[in-house]
């Protein structure tokens, strides 16, 4: 087992990415994720890697597209306004079936918004984000340890399913320091016969492309991609359940909201309210099964979010609107306190006591 070190969340992502075999990073400065780029700028030249500060977020994601096409692990990171700029490129990467990692350390919006934590890019991250029908595998860390662990997992899943993955963090996760144990195992790489490595005059040319002018062909690529998505929804949903077995009120929250909610659940139990928490670790695929399962026994759900209520739609879909789902949220860079979440739990439990 490796030693625990004290690290900022943003730095933990960077170090974990390097340990996952990522040697190419392209980014553009934006708060609150800049430490990640700074870490890469320091480390990459020392290990034969490439750090490049691009002229824009748009250029950065297209550089990512270029490296991804060669089959190497590659990433970019940004925060909400910057991730909006990357959407065109992300759509091309998804449409060309290339693996890559995009990190979004979210801040409040819309527009220039603020620089404090937020989860209001949930729709953008989980429903596609750019043009066309596609998904990203979206992982949501709730600790600095998970910032590191999920970075490695994101690279693996991206390679396995040939699609972009996103680490959907927030300003708190990026800025906070916690002890973290970094992976020490050698990364495993998969064969990528589709990669642009030069024909070497030994094979037909490979083409990386998302243009299909014949509608039947374009339809076919979309259908094939969604067959893969179906498989991912079946196999790759991840979550943590906390005190849900006998829960009357089931809180659903991810990231920093889940940490606050956990405290509130414990406090609710002390008051005799049977509360539990489901913490999605992937928000695409969304953990529908455990939530639908919880709906069989619990009376009400509370969605705790740092947005005006985005994940709440997925909860309602997962349970077929069979139970009331209330929203407990703060926005604009504010974070709900455990007391605020507790109040929401009490209200949700109230009608039945």
């Amino acid at each position, binding site marked *: 087992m490796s030693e625990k070190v004290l690290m900022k969340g943003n730095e933990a992502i960077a170090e974990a990415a390097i340990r996952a075999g990522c040697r190419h990073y392209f980014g553009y400065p934006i708060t609150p994720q800049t430490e990640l780029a700074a870490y890469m700028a320091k480390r990459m030249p020392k290990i034969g890697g490439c750090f490049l500060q691009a002229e824009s977020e748009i250029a950065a994601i297209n550089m990512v597209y270029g490296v991804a096409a060669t089959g190497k692990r590659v990433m970019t990171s940004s925060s909400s306004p910057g991730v909006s700029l990357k959407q065109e490129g992300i759509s091309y990467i998804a449409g060309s079936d290339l693996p890559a990692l995009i990190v979004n350390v979210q801040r409040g919006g819309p527009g220039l918004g603020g620089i404090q934590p937020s989860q209001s890019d949930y729709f953008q991250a989980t429903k596609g984000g750019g043009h066309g029908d596609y998904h990203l595998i979206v992982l949501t860390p709730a600790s600095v340890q998970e910032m590191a662990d999920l970075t490695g997992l994101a690279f693996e899943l991206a390679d396995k399913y040939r699609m972009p993955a996103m680490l959907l963090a927030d300003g708190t996760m990026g800025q906070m320091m916690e002890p973290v144990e970094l992976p020490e195992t050698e990364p495993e790489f998969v064969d990528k016969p589709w990669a642009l490595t030069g024909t070497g005059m030994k094979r037909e040319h490979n083409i990386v*492309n998302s243009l299909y002018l014949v509608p039947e062909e374009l339809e076919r690529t979309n259908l094939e991609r969604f067959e893969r998505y179906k498989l991912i929804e079946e196999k790759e949903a991840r979550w943590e359940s906390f005190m849900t077995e006998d829960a009357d009120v089931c809180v659903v929250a991810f990231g920093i909201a889940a940490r606050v909610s956990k405290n509130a659940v414990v406090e609710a139990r002390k008051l005799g309210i049977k509360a539990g928490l489901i913490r999605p670790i992937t928000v695409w695929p969304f953990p529908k099964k455990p939530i639908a399962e919880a709906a069989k026994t619990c009376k009400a759900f509370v969605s705790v979010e740092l947005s005006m209520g985005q994940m709440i739609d997925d909860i309602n879909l997962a349970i077929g609107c069979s139970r009331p789902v209330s929203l407990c949220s703060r926005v604009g860079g504010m974070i709900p306190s455990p007391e605020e979440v507790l109040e929401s739990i009490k209200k949700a439990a109230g009608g039945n006591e």
Partner: protein
Amino acid sequence: MVVFERPKSLAKVPMHYCPGCTHGIIHRLVAQAIDELGIEGSAIGVAPVGCAVMAYNYFTCDMIEAAHGRAPAVATGLKRSDPSKIVFTYQGDGDLASIGMAETVHAATRNENITVIFVNNAIYGMTGGQMAPTSLPGQVTQTSPYGRDVSTAGYPIKVSEMLSALDGPEFIARVAVNNVKNVKNAQKIIKKAFENQVNNKGFSLVEVVSSCPTNWGKTPSDALKWVEENMIPYYPLGIYKDKSAQKEGE
């Protein structure tokens, strides 16, 4: 003895270009340079959005399709991933000088070791003939129906002159393909732009003054005449920057 044949790097497929279009000539010159330098096995090309969007089908090396204007950024990724590969972009004037100007300028200023083939025909061809950043003053297009009015639409961008003002790029040249003499010179210059990359010299861009009979509303031969009489006076041909030659001369 074979005196004329298709370059090996040019795929044996029908091209979609309009009759009289000079893209075919420029494709050939690129393929010929790749053949002559023996780099087909290590070359990776980046196709643009525009008339040459399907160039990925026309070259036999590995190819990638970029978003509109982003080819130099994609090429940067490809080259940084494996500097032993020979990476080139093939872009039009809307792609390179309008939507992708930032990517162009920054790839040039980083002296990114790539080769850029920039086809300037003063119009957006693929979308049916709109005003381009390089459309001439007074030029009639679908979106400048009364002629390009420089007081509202601004002046054409002289890409080669502009980029050669930067310290970064290795080689910037403008050629034309409107007659045999110019085609022969273009062949030499395009080959040099690839050779520079093989020799790790850095960013090399060749602007090729080209024609668009379809959207200019001219016969192929009149279009070539228009290149001679209107395009070349505004976009003078020549080598605008050659850092290595400069050093030798010092």
